[in-house]
């Protein structure tokens, strides 16, 4: 039974919850099999992610990254493009912010550096996505292949720059000097302190506000503008789009630039918001996780936010779990994360027929195939 025939609240509400529950049950069995208490583990995980201020801060900080990365994948997906290059675009976006901060942090105040950093991350991320976009649009090179390759080129470029050019002299670690305070995005606990609210310190910074703005903006762009209409038309059927007078090449390049720019904001969150310096590997796989986030969120901004929160909980709760329970290693935490992705992404509609059977048993409708079952 196709899930489309189910009411919307079941498709977007009941089934995802059911999938996550299934993933947690399987995780629980694995945890029990290695001799730990699955209920205690789950409690540690939820409490670690949502039970106290610092944990909430980390959860939302991860969710910020996943929202940017998820939105980047989502918009490309609406145009029928599969952008696997979020990781590299985020890396280069971070490089852009870092270069601007290293050059100007002593000369300009924060109010000017903030928009400059924002712009730099977007431009660098977009530029890194523009090349594969051009190759797809005008040369027919498949975007999946080229964006994957660009991830490696980004990593190689960063190692070269960090080791040979941007390294702080006399340092063993390939990282730049720390930016001046004017080049730091305010942390949320700092921002709250200005208005007299105290909140535990965490890497959560004002990027999260920008992530919310991006969500709204992207939703409006895709469903409320002419460009969004063209984008979706190309995604549904490129030939029909041409027939309707849309230029798919232009749409592909513009869409990928927006996608790359969004991914670049992950770099802004990390470099300007958290580490306050350029370093290696700050993207830590967020760009790849964005793919899972987008799929789980059905490529809709609201879905992406919800999926980002779920992954934020998994990341922060998982770290807490590995910290508190010595028997549970980070590999097992990755296994739990993998199971959630498997059940909510790859097996998303596995439970749909069963749910449909139950739903129509409770609320019958005249359809022989269903009533017979």
């Amino acid at each position, binding site marked *: 039974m196709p899930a489309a025939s189910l009411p919307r609240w079941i498709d977007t509400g009941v089934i995802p919850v059911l999938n996550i529950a299934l993933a947690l049950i399987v995780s629980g069995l694995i945890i029990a099999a290695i001799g730990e208490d699955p209920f205690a583990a789950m409690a540690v995980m939820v409490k670690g992610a949502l039970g106290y201020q610092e944990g909430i801060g*980390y959860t939302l*900080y991860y969710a910020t990254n996943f929202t940017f990365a998820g939105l980047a994948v989502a918009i490309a997906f609406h145009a029928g493009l599969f952008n696997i290059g979020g990781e590299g675009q985020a890396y280069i976006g971070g490089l852009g912010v870092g270069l601007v901060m290293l050059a100007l942090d002593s000369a300009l105040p924060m109010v000017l550096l903030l928009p400059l950093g924002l712009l730099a991350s977007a431009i660098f991320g977009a530029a890194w996505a523009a090349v594969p976009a051009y190759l797809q649009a005008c040369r027919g090179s498949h975007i999946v292949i080229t964006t994957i390759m660009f991830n*490696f080129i980004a*990593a*190689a470029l*960063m*190692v*070269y720059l960090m*080791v040979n050019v941007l*390294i702080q002299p006399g*340092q*063993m*670690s*390939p*990282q730049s000097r*720390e930016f001046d305070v004017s080049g730091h995005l305010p942390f949320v606990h700092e921002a709250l302190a200005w208005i007299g609210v105290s909140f535990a310190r965490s*890497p959560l910074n004002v990027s999260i506000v920008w992530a919310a703005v991006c969500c709204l903006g992207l939703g409006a762009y895709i469903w409320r503008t002419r460009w969004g209409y063209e984008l979706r038309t190309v995604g549904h059927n490129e030939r029909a789009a041409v027939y309707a007078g849309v230029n798919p090449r232009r749409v592909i390049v513009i869409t990928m630039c927006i996608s790359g720019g969004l991914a670049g904001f992950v770099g802004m969150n*990390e470099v300007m918001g*958290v*580490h306050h*310096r350029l*370093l290696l*590997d*700050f993207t*830590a*796989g967020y760009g790849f996780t964005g793919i899972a986030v987008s799929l789980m969120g059905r490529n809709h901004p609201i879905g992406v936010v919800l999926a980002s929160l779920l992954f934020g909980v998994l990341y922060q709760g998982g*770290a807490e779990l*590995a*910290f508190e329970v*010595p028997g549970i*290693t*980070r590999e097992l*935490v*990755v296994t739990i994360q993998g199971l959630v992705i498997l059940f909510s992404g790859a097996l998303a509609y596995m439970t749909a027929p069963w749910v449909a059977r139950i739903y129509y048993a409770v609320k019958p409708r005249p359809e022989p195939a269903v009533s017979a079952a």
Partner: protein
Amino acid sequence: MKPASVFLASAILLVASAAVSAADLRPAVVFDMGGKFDKSFNQGVNDGVLKFNKETGVKHREFVITNPTQREQAIRKMAQRGSDIILGVGFAQSSAIEKVAKEFPNTKFAIIDGYVVAPNVQSLLFKEHEGSFLVGMLAAMASKSGKIGFIGGMDIPLIRRFACGYEKGAKYVSSKIDVIQNMTGTTPSAWSDPSRGAELTRGQFGQGVDVVFAAAGGTGVGVYQAAKDAGKLAIGTDSNQNYLQPGTMLTSMLKRVDVAAYTTFMEARSGTWKAGIKVFGLKEGGIDWALDENNKALISGDMKAQVDAAKADIIAGRIMVHDYMSDKSCK
């Protein structure tokens, strides 16, 4: 209950709790992204910590990070939980240790391969170039083709220091020797990619290399396997890896991170711990080359004599091994 007995009971409790906290050091280790089972660098630290556990019965907390933000999070969390001494593994944790050490002035911190100046931080530094020099000499003496190889993890200053020492040692034996270098990758997976390591090694063998030195963490396992399959020689790093492929492993460059980890915890326990820089070189026994029953057939008396002589010269200061970090070049 009478006031006197209340007083007595609480006094006993106080004494008891004081005794417990005095006896029990609460050490903690934060491993970096490479994990702790690479049979090389991280595992060396783990071995040292386990040895400390076994001898003293003191349990430790540990955490293996998965992304750069967790460095500071894990170290701070260890400090908040009342750990007495926190050991950070790897230079990448320097800035996190520096930051958290300021917030917890009464907690002791130690960092391996990192250089942090603070009144409560011990920096444990190694002279990798000295050990690499010695194994470079051995490689040059064992090589019949006159070409030796180096497989690094990532092209970062630390690995360049290994490579530079290795090359200098080889050239010390024979100025005509060729050293071919390859790096495994540009992402953290470069430290745990045995198949890529094996591929690069076969590539070097194709160019005529017959002894290869791996300074690439878990990637080395693949390098040694490839050397065994091709009937060539390989040199291990950090831990004594001779046992991995007996007969193929010419030797291992020992970087005794296990001793460093063990010692810093022991000192913290006995009260002799001091902040500052501790350098481990050939002289201090923190760096060495491995000779055991797995490789003694491959090391001739002449080779051993020459290397031992060079080792004595380095310790005495008659040979100055060039350190890549001193001028960022290997001239």
